[in-house]
């Protein structure tokens, strides 16, 4: 299904090196198999370093001990992080027990990390353990295909166990979209699962042999929750229901939060509303938003390669018209919907199907046994008796879903015993989030996950000081400007600049529909807290009824509102 290409809409010039390596990779194979046999290094060589990302892994090392190991004449402690593909974040107790055991026995950090993309990550897997890891996952029906790299990544779906019928329908679409947009190469099966090479002429009908210009993120969202943060994603399907039944989606295209410090040609941007489509066109629309981006995304400058820049360069209407042309349908006018919030509903809720669901707060999404807080043991203990499933949320929390009324007591007892339920956790802490960052993320410039608990404690103190201990500000800390922790949709977002130094952005809102703006540049904790102290004080005194912190700072002009990112964000 080759589409006619309009060269005027393409960026001409010397293609980036990533384009060469994708083309040379023989559909993502490279020489990964050879590297797996190389016993002299724990890392991957040359192109393979990038290619393993398409298989859901990043090569990382323990950055805390990098200088120490250099002195020891040892290479960095190379390992991989694996990110599983779990559309909608649903995982069964059997699957959970298997990954729980693997994390304990075969990873350097021993943890299961829930992420903002509704999946789990293993951190610190040494090279000799990688194949066994994929085979273990495969044996329980999980893979990590295309959870990183220039492809469509794990597809998110709102965690709404209450609207069980609607959620089930939306979730099925998330899974179908994920499957439809997957790479078709057999490289994953051959390399990791030792499946035989089949003599076929492989093609990538959707993604193409050089895949996408850049990463691509998709969600299925069920209003009024915006837990998945649609504006952080390239492609979003906003569920529209009638009488509790899914009838179609509004399609939002071109959101994305990544930027590069010091490069004003990069900026976080909200998604554009293309309009409504019926269910019969979902896969075709998904496919062709991808193919338009595939054909017209910038393959020369990777910093401008994402869908949001393609839309700003060729125009919303051009992009949309091209999708309509390729699918052969017109988008209908958007159906009305409203987002009211992004947080998870902690504690027990009862679904319309009479099942009960317990959402537990996992600070930083890091499931590990801590002194007095044996989270990992607790989840495993629950998995051993749980008859429903688990749902990983886009806020890095965990839902124990589908509990029969008679099992509630036992499950709650286990959750309390292992610190999974802690009534003293404040709203502020529940509404704070950080990416992984140091010590494993190679991109990190400053601490995030390891710093967040302390920062939240400081912010809690400020709220108490100003007499509003039960209020909260959506607070997000990220180690670099690449967007994993979605700080560019926070009311107060810290973006790492260097050790102990952050940019402070203010002015997002609770619904996640406004990009915040730079307030302080490259500052340390003391200045950040001093600024927040003053602003929280003003907010408490001057806010209008129900006005959130982000709305307040924009209304009174602490920061200017970012309406059009391209022009306003850096203004």
């Amino acid at each position, binding site marked *: 299904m080759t589409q006619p290409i309009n060269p005027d809409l393409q960026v001409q010039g010397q293609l980036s090196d990533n384009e060469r390596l994708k083309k040379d990779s023989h559909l993502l194979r490279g020489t990964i198999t050879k590297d797996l046999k190389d*016993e*002299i*290094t*724990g890392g991957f060589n040359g192109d393979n370093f990038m290619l393993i990302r398409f298989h859901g892994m990043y090569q990382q090392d323990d950055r805390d*001990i990098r200088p*120490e*190991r*250099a*002195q*020891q*004449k*040892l*290479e960095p*402690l190379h390992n991989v992080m694996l990110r599983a593909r779990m559309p909608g974040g649903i995982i069964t107790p059997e699957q959970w027990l298997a990954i729980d055991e693997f994390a304990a026995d075969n990873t350097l950090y021993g943890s299961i990390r829930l992420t903002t993309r509704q999946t789990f990550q293993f951190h610190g897997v*040494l090279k*000799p353990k990688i194949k066994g890891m994929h085979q273990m996952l495969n044996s329980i029906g999980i893979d990590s295909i295309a959870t990183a790299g220039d492809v469509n990544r794990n597809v998110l779906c709102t965690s709404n166990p209450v609207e069980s019928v609607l959620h089930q329908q939306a979730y099925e679409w998330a899974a179908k979209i994920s499957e439809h947009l997957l790479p078709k190469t057999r490289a994953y099966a051959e390399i990791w699962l030792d499946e035989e090479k089949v003599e076929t002429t492989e093609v990538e009908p959707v993604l193409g042999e050089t895949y996408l210009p850049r990463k691509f993120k998709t969600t299925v969202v069920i209003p009024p929750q915006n837990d998945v943060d649609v504006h952080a994603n390239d492609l979003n399907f906003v569920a529209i229901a009638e009488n509790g039944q899914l009838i179609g989606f509004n399609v939002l295209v071109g959101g994305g939060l990544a930027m590069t410090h010091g490069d004003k040609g990069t900026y976080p941007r909200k998604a554009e509303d293309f309009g409504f489509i019926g269910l019969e066109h979902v896969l075709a629309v998904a496919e062709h938003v991808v193919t338009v981006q595939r054909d017209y995304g910038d393959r020369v400058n990777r910093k401008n390669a994402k869908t949001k820049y393609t839309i700003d360069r060729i125009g919303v209407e051009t992009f949309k018209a091209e999708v309509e042309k390729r699918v052969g349908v017109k988008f209908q006018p958007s159906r009305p919907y409203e987002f009211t919030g992004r947080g998870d509903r902690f504690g027990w809720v009862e679904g319309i199907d009479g099942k009960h669901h317990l959402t537990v707060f996992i600070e930083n999404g890091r499931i590990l046994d801590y002194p007095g807080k044996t989270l990992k043991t607790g989840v495993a203990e629950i998995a051993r008796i749980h008859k429903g499933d688990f749902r990983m949320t886009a806020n890095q929390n965990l839902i124990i879903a589908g509990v029969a009324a008679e099992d509630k007591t036992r499950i709650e007892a286990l959750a309390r015993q292992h610190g999974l339920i802690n009534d003293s956790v404040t709203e502020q802490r529940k509404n704070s989030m950080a990416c992984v960052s140091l010590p494993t993320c190679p991109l990190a410039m400053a601490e995030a996950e390891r710093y967040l608990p302390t920062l939240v404690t400081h912010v809690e103190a400020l709220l108490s000081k100003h007499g509003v201990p039960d209020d909260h500000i959506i607070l997000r800390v990220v180690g670099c400007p690449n967007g994993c922790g979605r700080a560019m949709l926070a009311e107060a977002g810290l973006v790492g600049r260097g050790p102990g130094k952050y940019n402070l952005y203010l002015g997002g809102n609770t619904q996640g529909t406004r990009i915040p703006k730079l307030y302080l540049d490259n500052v340390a904790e003391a200045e950040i807290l001093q600024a927040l102290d003053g602003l929280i004080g003003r907010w408490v005194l001057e806010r209008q009824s129900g006005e959130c912190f982000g709305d307040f700072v924009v209304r009174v002009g602490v920061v200017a509102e970012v309406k059009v990112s391209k022009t306003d964000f850096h203004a």
Partner: protein
Amino acid sequence: MLLASLAAQASPLSAQQIKDLQSLVSQLNPIQQAWVSGYLAAAAQLAGGLSAAPVQQTNESAVLTILYGSQTGNAKAVATKVKAAAEQQGIAVKLADIGSYKTTALAKEKYLLIVTSTYGEGEPPESAVAFHKFLFSKKAPKLDGLKYAVLGLGDTSYEFFCKTAIDFDEQLAALGAKRLHARADLDVDYAAQAASWTEAAVLAFAPELKQETGSAQVIAWPGATATASHDSAYTKETPYSAELSVNQKITGRDSTKDVRHIEISLVDSGITYQPGDALGVYFLNDTKAVDAILTATGLDGTTEVQLAGQTLALKTALTEQLELTQSYPSFVEKYAQATANSELLELVKDKAALRQYLDSRQTLDVILQNPAPLTAQQLVDSLRKQQPRLYSIASSQAEVGDEVHLTVGVVRYDAFGETHLGGASGFLAERLEEGSQVKVFVEHNDNFRLPDHETPVIMIGPGTGIAPFRAFLQERDQAGATGQNWLFFGNPHFTQDFLYQVELQDYLKRGVLSKLDVAFSRDQAQKVYVQDKLRVKAEEIWTWLQQGAYLYICGDGNKMAKDVHQALLDIAQQQGGFSVEQAEQYFDDLRQAKRYQKDVY
């Protein structure tokens, strides 16, 4: 004139001779080169031509042949002194490394004196293995016409004390030779007894040899004297006080091993060494251990004691001169007598029990666990003098100039509620600060040398056994040697114990290392060792050996070297179609040809 440009010049040498000369000279340090230059000039004058044969013709039968089997240089040093003493008596002497002695000459030999050490579990030092085998083989000749004496050097802390000397002594007698002077088996503090034995032994030989020759004739053996010439002014007796410049742990933070990369400055010392040599290191004992001993014995550290003709304070003697870490039976016996400790006295009667007792104890443990009053002099007399520890040098001067690098495994273990440290390794790793002084000397080892630049080498060096191979690689890298280099390395864990990983990766990338095979024993359920990796690469190893590769093993002699040897025998049988005997013979021949060299401990 540079040798490299020699070929282009008009010279009386053939191309092959130039190549041989270049090959030889490339292995010599400046002092050796100077000596060779002088030697050749003198030889040319005397003989009117170039010859490595004895300078003067003599009656072979009237010569005392002195052979030394030396692992650490001690036996060689003693043998050299025997030679000097014999010459003093007007005896003609031939001194040679037992490893280079042609066993076929033994049948014609009339006077033989052997000085040999023993290592590991009663095995001959590497250079004496072939001779030892020959003596016990069917090929060993009748030796009715031979008169001999054997001196053994050993360490009573090992079970098979002086076993090799005993073997030689008894087997020579069994073959019909006549023992002219009784064997002595000397412990590590051998100096005084070695001198008295030498004197007596030489007197035993003197009447017959003087009679036969009539006059003294000195036969110069290049091999023997050349060795002496590259000794620097600093020796075991007169070590150089060097500065520790780097003490860097090179195992990861989660390693069960603590291995240090040590750099010592030799600046201005004039000390030279070659890859393959070892560095002798003297150390100071831990003052905490010394204080504990003083407390346990109720002695005053300032008490004056006599030690090797010196008068010094007890504390100084304990700290600087005496052995407090390596334990050995004779101490227990002397200490038991001095303190009238009946339990210990009982223990020393049972050798096996004593050995077991000492397995887990350092000398200082014996004292601390048996505290008793004795005089300061009794204590000193029951302890033996500290022996320097020898470390294979891990650097080449071609690369590091006037530094010397070591790879030191720190001996550290908990016992009896205390952390125990090895004497020298504890000193280097924990007590000696960078910038402080350490007494060192070079112990040359001509039995562990690189071949010419073109010859491929296979190096097997797990653990700290990698040390000399780092020196080899530096040397070959700097020389631009074209011979291929293949290294086998092993240790418990890849992430923690891959010694010099980054350097080896770089050598591999640059092609200095042609191949690198690693065995990390504890990274998988089934333990994998270097010998397993050798077996995996059997065919290729065999090809390399057929192509003339030299084979080197460094590291643990008790287990690893034997397992590796067995793997090599298996490879020769499997790949070469040899019988067990043929395989043994094959490696004996390699050893004889200096193509199979070991530095094991």
